[in-house]
């Protein structure tokens, strides 16, 4: 913890931004210590949650109870860590703990605990504990629960992260983590189709919203100059005045609305009801869907108080409130009804934030608490009914009051709270909502519209609550239930009992139960002194009470008129945003598949064309946009030999292109090109390059001939004129462009480092061959990277060729069978003595490499060509048993040698890959200059030999394996 601030709480400015005034405090030594401790404690909450989320998975072998206990312990530990911090948050402090992470991007591990965070932490952990207990009974005993609880804990950790983040980018990371973990939870019963569809939809919508939120947060950070909440919340005026305010607000709202299932993004929530009911009770009532409204509350001081905020947040909230309440009434599935009711209540909370007065914000926070309590208990009750009856269809589940009177009573109380019946907590926040709509200042000429709207919404809430109570618990006898229902186990009911008790307590004694928490949370949300509000059951006869009464009466009336209403609803044109989304999603997936099929159709020609086109485009763009080089160096005069060589080069290249259907001839012409290039290197005094080029050329020719062997005997089909002209154009553009680039580079004067290398090669690197010293010493890190890539290529070739079965044709292009004598005696006998000779050459080149042309790379190529010669001359049956096996281990050995010698320099306190060198006197051989770079070079050597051998011998043995498999069959 590098930084920790605690604003002083004094007078009006109680809910203040963090300030540095603490430093002037005389007794800050004590405070500092306390501050550090609480910072650690704060950081410990998410750290504990993330460190231990897999605990249930680890202990599930000890039984379901152990897993449950582990999950509960994790949550209880987090709660215990939170409690010492609670008093400060209640007092209005904002505890901030900060650990630099990626300061360059404005991303720090900074956490913040204030009233709002505390409220959400309590909801997450408290309801989480109840859900853990509930799930133990709800999920079938065949489920070992480790996976379930681990994902649940991961989700909880991510939620804690969201509500405790001080840095908005950090918040976003946790935000996306909740999307992912909720996907896993909704899809928990992955064998069910609805689960998978629902989970996918939830992920697509909330994940997509997360991307919008990301963009919005980046904009917001750009406007405010920081991603830290402390800065952003203090910069409200500046943010609202900024030109980018509108896009930032809209993007952030998309994020919040998708998460909180606000219209028009509400449709994923009913689909997510395929989740196990404990998940619904946790995610879809108390926590995840509240993340959206949490974000609204969190950013309210920065983004709120503008017309755009009012219309967007209020509009979407109002729309959702009524639309979802009306839809809830017509749902036959209990959880479907509850889902739409949740959407509706979230709409209510959103609307309250949108109304944009301090009191409405207080009401919104209050309703967050109340809704979490009663909705979680309702979901749990629905789960009990589902668990006992085997179905959730309200047309079949009837008369449950007689079967399970206790659960029924509890559910009825909770549903009453949902409807806003007096003495219950839902009533209080709904009263506050009604009061706010009446006193709302902006709608002067249409002052009656908002209250009327609110009353209608209240009526609908009462109506669907009545339907829930009446249909499930009364309304005659159950119809054709899969199971014989009875009361659930004692402890399965306990969470519901506790939550319903809270409903009653908050409803009857709001002041001393929820008052302080609400004050702390609302204060932290507003970042300003709290408005004057009074939590009480009885406010006297006033307009809100009248509206409540109207809502209750109207709701009951609507429910009484349900039969004509249902008949009317059945005739409505079906409105299926879910199916529309699913159709859209499938169209998107099909489109992606089609695009992929166009791009990735297995044609090497197409890949090359696309790749080269892209390079041409990039190069062209750079060419057009880059600065032009005006200074040109004079070119060198060309002599006859150079012109001749270039002509041969040109003829070879043209011939290979023109004669591509005569494969063998084309390969020979390609090798002509390579040889001319080698000669050019020699002429331009680059013996190292020439040597390497020659060795590469040998390997390439063998490789090409091997590949040719597997091609079908008929020659390649002729390309269409269109394709030919496309390829010609591409080739001309790419080749011409490359030529231009080369000319540009060679003709522009520039300072090179060659002088330094030439000077330092012998004293600094201990070698006279500058090229080799550059490779193994000056730029050893580059070489290490290159041989790593080479090793990867070898590994990939090994993996690809290992199981490939490819049968070569039995005869050549003219229909002649291959020669019977595959390994002429003359060849095989003379190649054997050639092997030690070739190896001597390669060792010679290797050893002298540091001082004169040679080195590990060339030596490796020569060794591998010499070894491949043995394959060619004597056949695989002879050569394979005599070759080193375990290509993968050899690759590792090579890399280990190269990297290991680099690491050794650490032992001597030098940087990675520092080279040491000295003279050694050996008998017989004499003075030898040895450099540690030689070991590095040895690593290069081993990797090169292994890769070339793997590829060539692998290709060569394909057909052999194919044939032996055929024979086995």
């Amino acid at each position, binding site marked *: 913890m590098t930084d920790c601030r605690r604003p002083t709480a004094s007078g009006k400015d109680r809910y203040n931004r963090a300030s540095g005034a603490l430093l002037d405090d005389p007794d800050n030594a004590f405070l500092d210590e306390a501050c550090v401790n609480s910072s650690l404690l704060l950081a410990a909450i998410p750290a504990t949650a993330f460190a231990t989320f897999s605990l249930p998975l680890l202990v599930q072998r000890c039984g379901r109870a152990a897993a449950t206990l582990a999950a509960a312990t994790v949550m209880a530990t987090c709660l215990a860590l939170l409690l010492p911090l609670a008093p400060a948050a209640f007092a209005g402090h904002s505890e901030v703990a900060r650990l630099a992470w990626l300061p360059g991007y404005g991303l720090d591990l900074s956490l913040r605990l204030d009233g709002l965070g505390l409220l959400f932490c309590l909801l997450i952990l408290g309801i989480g504990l109840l859900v853990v207990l509930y799930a133990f009974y709800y999920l079938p005993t065949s489920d070992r629960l480790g996976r379930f609880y681990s994902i649940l804990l991961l989700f909880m950790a991510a939620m804690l992260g969201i509500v405790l983040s001080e840095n908005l980018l950090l918040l976003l990371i946790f935000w996306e983590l909740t999307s992912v973990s909720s996907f896993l939870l909704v899809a928990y019963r992955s064998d069910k189709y609805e689960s998978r569809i629902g989970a996918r939809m939830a992920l697509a919508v909330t994940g997509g919203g997360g991307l919008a939120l990301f963009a919005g947060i980046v904009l917001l950070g750009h406007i405010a100059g920081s991603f830290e909440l402390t800065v952003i919340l203090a910069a409200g005026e500046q943010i609202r005045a900024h030109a980018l305010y509108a896009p930032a607000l809209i993007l952030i709202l998309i994020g919040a609305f998708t998460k909180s299932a606000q219209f028009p993004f509400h449709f994923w929530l009913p689909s997510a009801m395929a989740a196990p009911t404990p998940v619904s009770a946790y995610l879809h009532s108390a926590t995840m869907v509240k993340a959206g409204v949490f974000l609204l509350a969190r950013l309210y001081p920065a983004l709120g108080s503008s017309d755009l905020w009012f219309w967007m947040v209020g509009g979407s909230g109002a729309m959702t409130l009524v639309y979802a309440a009306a839809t809830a009434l017509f749902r036959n599935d209990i959880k479907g009804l509850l889902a739409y009711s949740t959407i509706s209540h979230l709409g209510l909370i959103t609307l309250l934030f949108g109304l944009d007065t301090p009191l409405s914000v207080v009401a919104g926070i209050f309703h967050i608490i109340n809704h979490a309590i009663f909705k979680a208990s309702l979901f749990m009750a629905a789960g009990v009914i589902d668990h006992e009856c085997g179905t959730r269809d309200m047309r079949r589940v009837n008369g449950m009051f007689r079967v399970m009177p206790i659960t029924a009573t509890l559910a009825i109380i909770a549903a009453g709270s949902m409807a806003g019946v007096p003495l219950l907590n839902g009533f209080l926040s709904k009263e506050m909502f009604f009061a706010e709509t009446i006193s709302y200042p902006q709608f002067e000429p249409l002052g009656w519209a908002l209250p009327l709207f609110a009353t209608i919404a209240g009526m609908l809430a009462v109506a669907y609550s009545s339907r829930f109570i009446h249909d499930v618990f009364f309304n005659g006898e159950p119809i054709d239930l899969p199971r014989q229902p009875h009361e659930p186990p004692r402890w399965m009911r306990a969470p519901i009992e506790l939550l319903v008790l809270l409903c009653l307590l908050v409803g009857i004694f709001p002041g001393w139960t929820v008052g302080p928490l609400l004050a702390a949370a609302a204060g932290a949300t507003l970042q300003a002194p709290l408005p004057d509000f009074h939590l009480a059951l009885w406010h006297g006869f006033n307009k809100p009470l009248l509206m409540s009464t109207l809502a209750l009466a109207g709701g009951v009336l609507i429910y009484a008129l349900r039969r004509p209403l249902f008949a009317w609803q059945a005739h409505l044109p079906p409105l299926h945003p879910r199916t529309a989304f699913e159709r859209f999603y499938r169209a998107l997936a099909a489109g992606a598949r089609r695009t992929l099929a166009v791009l990735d159709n297995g044609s090497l020609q197409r890949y090359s064309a696309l790749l080269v086109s892209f390079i041409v485009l990039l190069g062209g763009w750079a060419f057009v946009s880059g600065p032009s080089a005006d200074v040109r160096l004079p070119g060198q005069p060309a002599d006859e030999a150079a012109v001749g060589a270039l002509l041969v080069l040109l003829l070879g290249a043209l011939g290979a292109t023109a004669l591509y259907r005569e494969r063998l001839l084309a390969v020979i012409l390609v090798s002509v090109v390579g040889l001319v290039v080698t000669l050019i290197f020699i002429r331009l005094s680059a013996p190292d390059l020439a040597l390497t080029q020659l060795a590469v050329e040998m390997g390439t020719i063998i490789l090409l001939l091997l590949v040719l062997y597997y091609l079908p005997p008929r020659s390649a089909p002729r390309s269409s004129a269109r394709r030919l002209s496309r390829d010609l154009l591409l080739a001309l553009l790419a080749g011409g462009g490359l030529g231009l680039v080369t000319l540009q580079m060679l003709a522009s004067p520039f300072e090179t480092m060659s002088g330094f290398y030439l000077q330092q090669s012998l004293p600094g690197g201990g070698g006279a061959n500058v090229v080799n010293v550059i490779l193994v010493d000056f730029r050893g890190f580059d070489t290490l990277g290159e041989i790593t890539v080479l090793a990867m290529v070898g590994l990939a070739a090994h993996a690809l060729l290992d199981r490939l079965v490819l049968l070569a044709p039995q005869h050549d292009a003219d229909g*002649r069978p291959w*020669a*019977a*004598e595959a390994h002429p005696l003359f060849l095989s006998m003379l*190649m054997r003595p050639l092997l030690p*000779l070739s190896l001597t050459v390669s060792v010679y080149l290797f050893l002298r490499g540091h001082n004169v042309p040679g080195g590990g790379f060339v030596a490796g190529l020569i060794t591998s060509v010499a070894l491949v010669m043995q394959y060619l001359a004597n056949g695989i049956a002879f050569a394979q048993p005599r070759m080193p096996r375990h290509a993968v281990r050899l690759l590792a050995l090579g890399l280990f040698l190269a990297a290991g010698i680099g690491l050794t320099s650490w032992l001597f306190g030098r940087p990675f890959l520092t080279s040491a060198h000295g003279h050694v006197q050996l008998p017989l051989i004499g003075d030898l200059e040895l450099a540690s770079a030689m070991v590095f070079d040895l690593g290069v050597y081993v990797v090169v030999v292994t890769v070339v051998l793997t590829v060539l011998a692998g290709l*060569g*043995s394909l057909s*052999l394996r194919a044939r032996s498999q055929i024979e086995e069959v």
Partner: protein
Amino acid sequence: MSTMSTATEYAVAALIVLGALFVLLGSIGLARLPDFLTRLHGPTKATTLGVGALLLASAIFFSTRPDRGVSLHELAILFFLFITAPVTAHLLAKAALHRQAKARDGEQRTTADREKARSAPESPLG
């Protein structure tokens, strides 16, 4: 160059001229001889000899220079050349027979016919 004795100079010059002559002859043969099998003699026999002579000349020349010891590289090259040239010629001739390259007097086919009857090998390496 000045330190080289006259005898060595003559020897080197003679070898170079001889080598060049053989290489030239081999090249003419490659260009002028009528069919593949006879053409094969040019590069494999005459030219090999020519290059050998040139290499010897190089070895003598560099060995007699004062600042260097005996130059053995050329001998190694010579050795490689003398092993690979006949093998190459042998393989080319076999391939030509296999492909039933027609000589002017047209008496081939026999070997190829015989080989046709046998089974094909598994792989170029196998």
